[in-house]
């Protein structure tokens, strides 16, 4: 299976000199389509830094990140937005919806960024909300939605750009048990039915039921990679299993 993201020898150091703090220390990682990959680890282990670099919103100190076969760490600030727009969809712990826009308009923003014609935007945004079970909430403002509904709007918005990768940061942290399950089930279906690579940063052990693979991070390093049964992770490569 060909990885959509290839991370090699990745390091990230914040600040300099005596105040320097190494958040990532030689990380190697592949992210595959049709898989839900969990990034787990204690606070400060480097999960969010890793996902920020994979999402092209943070530059590494050294190392390489290939996204859909293209090296992205050396791209200019002007080139990166187009890469994010084409390949990445974000789902945030705090939803990050635009409070001044309705649910359907929140999704439309992503389509506007993709320069989808105005008439087509509303139709496609509505269809995406229908897909995530919010067919009756198109004109509702985020303030009037429950946490689970907000996260589903955020997922619809992330999908609007038709990205290869969904990066979700603690997507269930602010949700109750049932809403959390709905959102995770939705993310799993995206991976398995729509061929997306889904990466979830989480502390929540309930998430394990919906994942194909778990990457444990400690002190900026990959401590272990395993499938959800705890077996060391194997992936099909040319010449056999590795």
């Amino acid at each position, binding site marked *: 299976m060909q990885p959509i993201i290839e991370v090699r020898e990745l390091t990230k150091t914040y600040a300099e000199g005596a105040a320097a703090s190494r958040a990532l220390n030689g990380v190697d990682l592949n992210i595959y389509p049709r898989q839900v990959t969990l990034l787990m680890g204690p606070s400060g282990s480097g999960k969010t830094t890793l996902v*920020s670099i994979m999402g092209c*919103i943070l530059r590494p100190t050294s190392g390489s990140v290939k996204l859909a076969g293209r090296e992205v760490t050396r791209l200019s600030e*002007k080139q990166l*937005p187009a890469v994010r727009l084409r390949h990445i969809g*974000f789902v*945030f712990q705090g939803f990050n919806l635009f409070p001044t*826009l309705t649910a359907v308009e929140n999704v439309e923003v992503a389509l506007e*960024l993709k320069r989808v014609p105005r008439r087509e935007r509303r139709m496609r945004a509505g269809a995406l909300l229908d897909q995530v079970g919010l067919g009756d909430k198109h004109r509702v403002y985020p303030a009037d939605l429950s946490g689970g509904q907000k996260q589903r709007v955020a997922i619809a918005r992330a999908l609007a750009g038709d990205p290869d990768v969904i990066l979700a940061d603690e997507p269930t942290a602010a949700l109750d048990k049932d809403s959390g399950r709905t959102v995770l089930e939705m993310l799993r279906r995206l991976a398995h039915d729509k061929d997306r690579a889904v990466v979830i940063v989480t502390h929540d052990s309930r998430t394990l039921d919906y994942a194909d693979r778990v990457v444990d991070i400690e002190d900026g390093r990959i401590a272990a990679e395993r499938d959800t049964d705890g077996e060391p992770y194997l992936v099909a490569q040319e010449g056999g299993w590795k």
Partner: protein
Amino acid sequence: MASLAVRNLFHDRVRLVVTLTGIIFAVVLVAVQIGLFLGFTTTTSNLIDHSGADFWVVSRGVGYLEVATPFSEKNLYHARATPGVAVAEKFIVRFSIWKQADGSQHNCEVVGFDPDSSMGRPWNVVEGDVRSLKLPDTVIVDRFYQSKLGVSRVGDAVEIRGVRARVVGFTEGIRTFTTSPLAFTSFKSAQRYGPVDQDQTTFLLIKAAPGWDLERVRAGLKARLTDVDVLTTREFSGMTTNYWMFGTGAGVTVILAAVLGLLVGVVVVAQTIYAATIDHIREFGTLKAMGATNGYIYRIILQQAAISAAIGYGVGIVVAILAEHSSRHGGANIVLPVPVRAGLFGLTLAMCVSAAMVSINKVTKIDPAMVFRG
């Protein structure tokens, strides 16, 4: 879908009111301070500016209107004989003493002109007729000074430097910088109120014949007249304004107030717009993460600033114009001509956009990890 900029502005009405209040306050403050400055400036020279003359002939070395010293009226005849001079008239401006019927006294400025001439006449006459000044010992004063001068209607009698005078009309909006009200009267009456000797005048007003080069006419006047300066109306107006604005402390105070008003206005607008932008910084961070270019975000911020500027200016200038109107009946004179109003719109827009540019700088430096914080 309305643009994100419009939604950001209008969704939170309280925030909008706070933003607009800041801008409106700044617009009114700046408009009133500039209006006061212009009011003072125009008041110092409005008698000269409304004279209708091309040239003012003044005693040699006279620096401003109120300090004129008399000179021989022989110069009048020399002026009338100068090629290119269409009309030349004697004109008096002289401080005098105004005594009310109850005996109280005030300074006034007597303005003596020929009632048959088109030059040096009072303007904005709202009651009575300038032709009435052909009668001896008659005056026209401004309504604004009615109570100060102790007159309430046409026909009221007073004394000017011991000579009886009768009010035959009123003007509106003719103020003086010296706080001594103007009393328009015939040249002959003014000679008695001044007093100015029978064969003397304090100014000559000259109108050039149509088609004549003004500098050529001035050269002719200079060659024929003695012991006087020949100034264009613009020059004499500028000299008088300069004297009052810069030769005395009063003008500097007004200028400082205008500059301070401008600075305070800029700071208020900058803070207001900056706060309005920073309120949405997390959303701009999200947009960046979603793949929005900096240009897309700048457009939203600048759109917000421009809309805020337009609305804030619209309301602010209406308030300032109301203040201008009410100042006609009050102690301060606020003048806001159309070019100043237009310039103020440009200034408001520039203030808002500049403040937005400062916040754009902040948006450019958003910590990307911010979008991941709960």
